[in-house]
């Protein structure tokens, strides 16, 4: 090992499997041995550029059920790639156990090294240890569940044809962001085998209880009071209001066949699976970027990589963490890599060499001389919103030159509310944290009423915050999808969250 340490592991761009294996070992030694990362077992898969494009279109998952929207994504990505307008990612990593890392054939050896330090160490550690992922996703079951989903969708297509399956999936996809239970406690774990059995049981039961006779029974008309009583009881039974619209439809839509409910469930499970990723973009990428930076530098110190490789690495790294200003041409929002990386580097600095300011701002960990411990703790117990709220330091705000802008539709001008100065730090930090809170970014839409016995009308309510209404056209289209699943009239009420004042209403009927 000592002899190895003095000699670079590789020189030049060529790679082979043995070299990747040896380099991985060196990386793991630093990542696990020195930085104290705790990892899922890694599986590194080498793929071609075409396969990378394929993987893109199925939201990065190794297998996915078939749907035209993935084809659409593929068509666009392919064209962008061929035009040269966009280059491909160097890796894709999947939150699964074992953790699957896709790396591209075209990468140089330095890139492969960087990619392994980034994904196989950084992302992997984050997936395994962050509380959101622990709570919401089951890394060991996702691959099997995807296989189940793919098979199930294929079976449905065979049984009822492409069209009807597509219609249900379209509708469910439209509600994907409303298919997440944000506040529910610990969920039942899903077990793919049980899923299959449950689905089979559902079908068997339907066949069992089917009796031609029931169709011929006349329905006795009920009195009005009875109905309202029933309604109230029903609402209680339905546990309204419900924020997870997909869940509600799956359980309560009156007209859905079993297989349709199962399809909705599949989309819902996926949506739930991806929910943590949406909430931890900055942290996840920051963690991975921080890890690759630390590991590459440590490897250089140990003489395991050459100066040439370091130059190549520095070039890539600089591109990854580049943050253009708001008025520059390439600006497209805050770069999560840049922000996450800068914050984590800064945490390290605060732990090791705190300034007076840091001592005031972060008395609990400034100067504790344990940067890795502090970071591991942050990675485990925060999401973007709380992480920024807790850890964004004045120095990073100054470095990014962050400022807070308020745009009130009623005013002719936008107002700079706060900048990176003594008076503004806390305000800017609070606003930035809010910007990363997914639940305030997504519209808050809940099922508030459903009349199962009478008109069968479903009522959704959008609780409007800050006067920001839904995009009308999109909303109407999406509502059509809700109506298709629900089977009857659907109304969406937009009311102000604070005052309860009704602002706008949309209503739609399912197409025959």
């Amino acid at each position, binding site marked *: 090992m000592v002899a190895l340490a003095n000699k670079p592991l590789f020189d030049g761009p060529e790679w082979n499997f043995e070299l990747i*294996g040896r380099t*991985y*070992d060196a990386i*793991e030694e630093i990542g696990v041995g020195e930085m104290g990362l705790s990892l899922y077992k890694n*599986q590194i*898969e*080498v*793929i*071609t550029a*075409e*396969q990378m494009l*394929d993987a893109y*279109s*199925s939201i990065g998952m190794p297998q996915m059920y078939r749907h035209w*929207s*993935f*084809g*659409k994504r*593929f*068509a*666009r990505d392919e064209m962008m790639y061929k035009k040269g307008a966009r280059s491909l990612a160097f890796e894709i990593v999947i939150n699964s156990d*074992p953790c699957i890392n896709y790396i591209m054939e075209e990468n140089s050896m330095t890139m492969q090294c960087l990619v392994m330090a980034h994904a*196989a160490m950084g992302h992997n550690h984050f997936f395994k240890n962050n509380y959101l992922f622990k709570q919401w996703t089951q890394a060991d079951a996702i691959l099997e569940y995807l296989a189940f989903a793919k098979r199930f969708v294929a079976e449905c297509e065979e049984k009822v044809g*492409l069209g009807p399956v597509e219609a249900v999936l379209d509708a469910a*996809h*439209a*509600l994907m*962001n409303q298919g997440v239970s944000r506040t529910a406690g610990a969920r039942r774990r899903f077990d793919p085998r049980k899923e299959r059995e449950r689905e089979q049981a559902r079908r068997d039961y339907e066949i069992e209880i089917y009796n031609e006779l029931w169709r011929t029974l006349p329905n006795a008309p009920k009195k009005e009071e009875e109905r309202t009583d029933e309604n109230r009881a029903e609402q209680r039974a339905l546990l309204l209001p419900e924020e997870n619209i997909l869940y509600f439809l799956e359980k309560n839509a009156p007209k859905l066949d079993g297989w349709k409910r199962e399809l909705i469930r599949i989309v819902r499970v996926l949506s739930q699976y991806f929910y943590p990723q949406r909430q931890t973009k900055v942290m996840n990428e920051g963690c991975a970027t921080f890890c690759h930076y630390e590991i590459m530098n440590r490897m250089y110190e140990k003489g395991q990589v050459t100066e040439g490789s370091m130059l190549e690495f520095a070039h890539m790294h600089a591109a990854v963490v580049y*943050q*253009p*200003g*708001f008025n520059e041409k390439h600006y497209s929002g*805050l770069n999560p890599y840049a922000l996450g990386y800068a914050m984590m580097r800064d945490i390290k600095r605060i732990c090791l060499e705190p300034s007076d300011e840091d001592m005031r701002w972060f008395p609990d960990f400034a100067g504790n001389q344990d940067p890795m411990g502090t970071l591991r703790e942050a990675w485990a117990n925060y999401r973007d919103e709380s992480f920024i709220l807790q850890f964004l330091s004045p120095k990073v705000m100054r470095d*990014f*030159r*962050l*400022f807070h*802008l*308020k*745009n009130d*539709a009623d005013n002719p001008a*936008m*107002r*700079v509310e706060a900048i*990176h*100065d003594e*008076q503004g730090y806390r305000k800017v930090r609070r606003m930035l944290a*809010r*910007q990363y809170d997914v639940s305030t970014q*997504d519209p808050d*839409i809940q099922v508030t009423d459903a009349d199962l016995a009478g008109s069968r009308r479903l009522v959704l309510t959008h609780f409007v915050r*800050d*006067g*920001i*209404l*839904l*995009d*009308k056209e999109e*909303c109407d*289209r999406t509502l059509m999808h809700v109506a298709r699943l629900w089977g009857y009239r659907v109304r969406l009420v937009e009311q102000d969250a604070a005052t309860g004042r009704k602002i706008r209403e949309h209503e739609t009927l399912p197409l025959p």
Partner: protein
Amino acid sequence: MNIVDRRLNPKSKSLGNRQRFVRRAKADIRDAVKDALKKRKVTEVEGSEKITIRSKSVREPSFNHGRDGGVRDYVLPGNQDYKAGDLIPKPQGGGGGGRGGKASADGSGEDDFVFTLSKDEFLEVFFEDLKLPNLVKNRLKDLKNPLPQRAGFTSDGPPAKLARIRTLRRSLARRIALKRPKTEDMARLEEEIARHEAETPPNEVLIAELKARLARMTRMRQTIAYVDPIDLQYNRFDKVARPTTQAVMFCMMDASASMTENLKELAKRFFMLLHVFLSRHYKEVHVVFIRHTSTAAEVDEETFFRGVETGGTVISTALEEMDRIVKERYSPADWNIYAAQASDGDNIPDDMGHCIELVENALLPASQYFAYIEVSEHSGPGETIVWHGYSELAQRHKHFAMRRVTNPGEIFPVFHELFSSSASA
């Protein structure tokens, strides 16, 4: 840790998804292809096509915040000289000002969706309208004409195929290698001997030595041949069966006012199809557009399809024009000549005789195939003048064919009939 090589796994896992997407967007794509066809030239049908579709059918809606209204907060990087409390006037016209209200990441806010159809997908859509049975595409007749093609050199062959340069190059190399005395050296030596002999008194020893050298050189020249059988190289030719590489396609059309825009569109479809067909078989396809009223002229494509002229209809003028162009530019020995004539069947009655004579005596002997397409808005009974006149020709000559077309759906079947009959001929 585990390393897996997935590079050999089946590619295009997304093919199924792509097909679903194309199927889904078919109606839109068809419209887009139709648009593209109108813009496109006859000779350009086959390139892969960038298609822009209005994404009605491929839109993925979701509940999103609208772009304007309300109170929005942004935190932006890169502040230069703003201070708290500064007011920034909103840009004119745009409601939002800031860019925070962008559409969701998957771009569901976009209106037009641009992507590239592969050539096959494009032709599929193109032919779909024309009711192309999938199998026939490849069955259409191949026109093979074995041609000798250079295939390097060989050491054996008829004298006529001797590769002289190659042979001499080898000979030169051999002569240098074996040090065969050069003619100039011999001449110089003989000259030297003569000079020495002319001296008085002659240097006998030197002369004897020189003479011996000369004798040795002469002997070497005799043993080492100037061109040896091992030097010989012959050109080698293989018979390669391949289609004659060039074809010319004559498009003739009646441009008089009775040809409506629709009829021209029909004819254009036919010409396009013929062009696709020909360019699959020939390396180079020239297209000649001739339009006629009571006079005929060679024109460019734009004028051919777009221009309207007034005047009577004398078909023979176009045929004469074609005859002239063939004689001038496209010798039947070098070119495969195809002619497609489209008209609504109208002609001056006493012109038909001249037409038939022209086609039969001048054009048919030179052409591979002559197709006459009669386009009409509706398939009424009765024969037009041209139809009647050409009927007897079609009976006498197998490579003359005529069909009637009333709507785009018929074009491919008609086309297929025309060319499958030629295949059996």
